[in-house]
């Protein structure tokens, strides 16, 4: 009955309010309004901070002039110091500058690749759940197929097929990372589809596409964004891994994968900091983004926030 009421309200103004109603209703019910409000504020502040930090890394890397990467042989192979906190490489380039530039590039790659993957996931997930039975079967079969092949191998195959380089790698990551999110979205859609208000809406003569757009998609917004952000670390890790193996970005790019594969040569020579510090920075960035994803989940899915 509750569902029906909401549905009726919502069909009047546009369907977006379905999502909104969803949580205001829950909030009111819990009676813990004050607490949850504070948590939500905290989470929002937290998310803002992380987002600002990530944005700052991106902007810093993008704005840094290329001249900062020029070789300076007077300063080659220096260990970490106050002046060069990550040390310098065998060409005298500051490793901190290279790392920030690399992270910035990773962020860009991560954004493009995970957006691509998330859009694929949304389209596939909704199609599977809303379409006919055989469509669902086919989509499930494809999802199983993609899950059955190891990620890295699949990315390398796609990347080589699409002429290596940045394009091939982006396509490779996007084409392999949609699977998990597509499953979640399909499950969600199936659940919502069986809700009473959908049946009522159908009873009022609304078409399937209309229902998809007005009743289903709005509910997918939180899933979509949280999923997107949680794809991000995967995309970045795969970008670095692929580049490390020589299938990703070109060697002239200041990518973290390049830095790491270059540094491998010097680990045995006693300059382990050349690999460890940039590697740690990458891990930290990935953890930050992961945290941002989880914090956003608190914000967008109040159920989570109250757990």
């Amino acid at each position: 009955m509750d569902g029906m009421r909401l549905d009726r309200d919502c069909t009047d103004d546009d369907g977006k309010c379905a999502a909104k109603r969803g949580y205001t209703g829950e909030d009111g019910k819990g009676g813990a309004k004050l607490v949850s409000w504070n948590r939500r504020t905290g989470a929002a502040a937290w998310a803002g901070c992380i987002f600002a930090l990530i944005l700052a890394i991106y902007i810093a890397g993008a704005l840094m002039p290329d001249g900062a990467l020029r070789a300076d042989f007077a300063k080659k192979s220096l260990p970490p110091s106050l002046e060069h906190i990550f040390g310098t490489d065998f060409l005298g380039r500051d490793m901190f500058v290279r790392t920030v530039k690399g992270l910035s590039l990773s962020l860009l790659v991560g954004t493009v690749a995970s957006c691509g993957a998330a859009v694929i996931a949304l389209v596939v997930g909704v199609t599977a759940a809303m379409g006919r039975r055989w469509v669902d079967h086919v989509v499930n079969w494809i999802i199983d197929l993609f899950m059955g092949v190891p990620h890295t191998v699949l990315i390398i195959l796609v990347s080589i097929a699409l002429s290596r380089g940045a394009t091939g790698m982006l396509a490779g990551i996007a084409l392999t990372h949609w699977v998990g999110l597509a499953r979640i979205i399909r499950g969600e859609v199936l659940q919502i589809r069986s809700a009473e208000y959908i049946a009522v809406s159908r009873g009022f003569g609304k078409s399937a596409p209309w229902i998809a757009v007005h009743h289903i998609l709005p509910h997918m917004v939180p899933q979509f964004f949280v999923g997107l952000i949680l794809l991000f670390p995967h995309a970045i890790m795969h970008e670095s891994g692929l580049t490390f193996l020589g299938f990703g970005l070109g060697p002239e790019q200041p990518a973290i994968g390049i830095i790491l594969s270059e540094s491998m040569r010097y680990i045995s020579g006693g300059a382990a900091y050349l690999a460890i510090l940039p590697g740690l920075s990458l891990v930290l960035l990935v953890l930050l983004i992961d945290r941002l994803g989880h914090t956003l989940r608190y914000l967008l899915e109040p159920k989570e926030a109250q757990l």
Partner: protein
Amino acid sequence: MAGDADKGSTTSTGSTKDEVTIGFPGIPSGFDPFTVSGHGSFVPLLYSTLVALDKDVNVVPDLATGYSVSDDALTYTFTLRTDAVFSDGEPVKVSDAVFTFEKIMSGASEIDLAVVDSVFESDGQLVIKLKRPRSTFILDVAGIGIAPEHAYGEDFSLHPIGSGPYVLEQYDVGQQMILMANNLYYGAAPAIKRAVFVNMTDEDQQLIAVKSGQVDITLTSATIAAANTVPGYRLVVEETVDNMGITMPVIPAGSMASDSGNPMGNDVTCDIAVRKAVAYAIDRERLCREALNGYGTPAYSENDGMPWWNPESVIETDVAFARELLDSSGWVDADGDGIREKNGQKASFPVYYFAGDSARQALAMSAANQVLENIGVEMVVQGAGEGDMVAMMVAWPVVLAWGSSNPITSYYLFHSASIGRDDWYDPESFGDAAVDAYLDAALGANSMEEAIPYWQKAQWDGTTGTSMRGECPYIFLANKDHLYYAREGLDIGDQMIHAHGAGWTLVANLKEWRWEN
């Protein structure tokens, strides 16, 4: 007492090292002597050649006790030694040499015998007739390993039989090969009886192998050598003609396309003023210090120090002259950004190196710094994959390395016939009538001695040439020393001046290696 002493000496003989383990880059995929030249390959170890090169690049007898050349330089007659046998016990006959030459002429080989008209046996001697005189022919002969006609078959490549100082004992594809001294070898018995070659291509892999004592000798790089001394090992520094330089396309962009359609030419480097200014603006001593940690010498040609080198190709660093060249040809920095322009074209171009080659990258970056500071020309150093390089290098400057014990390399590098062939030669599209004439005369001369003045004039004849004093299609930077970690006590003999490639040039004289007591 006597018994004890005997015992002692037996033990010490038993433990006297006659084995060596070599960390080696690039174990070959087969040992067929017909596909590869003996310069920089397994040929001198497993096979014997009619003549050989000594460490001063003189031609000396080997399988042939002597040879004569007719006055018109078209007929070469070799007298073969009679005591040579293949490792299966069969004697080496003149017919085997005929078989070898004919096989190379009929198949695909990196040895170019197109100039040979016929090979036959006459009065127990080997006679080779040429279509036209070829001054480098005897050097080609020095690279041809003689194979047995009776034993050559399908799997010969993996079970080679030769008459050289060593035989192949064991071979694991891509991993290792083990050579044993050939008991039937006609020359002095080598002191090293057994040589294990372990495949080892990465610098850090090589260093680890030395640190853990797994190998007796292996290659290393300037970067590693400068930072690591390994107890029990000494650093061997071998001088080379392994020269590294930057190719500079001499034709304007879009003026032509290569055989497979790659666009050729570059609008900045086609100006000789830019090329020469870059050449003169670089302090090569500083380059060797900065980029090679001192393990290198300035390079001025593709063959510094070889008999056919022209010492006049040496240039002094002269920044004022370089600036004057650019000023007078209209390259000025009008907008004050530190980089000159001419007619809206910036004096800026990319320079590509093989991604992962730290020495080439460092050299190019060091040169780029100097050129920008000294004369306001920008070289943007970028890595590229080896697969893309052949297509790119006809339009963009590239860091290349050459160095050979055969002057024919100069012919291929700078003759106009090499333009646009989509190979590693002459990516600058350089071709000059005067230089072509010298190169043709050098190659077609009757002997090495007669050819030398022409090889030299091709580099610099007083007015033009391929060197940096002349047309300057190639900015030579440094001859890279070949560096090895060798276990204390391992004597690697007198090495011939090393050509390009640090592996095979090292072991070419394996039969002269020995352990000091």
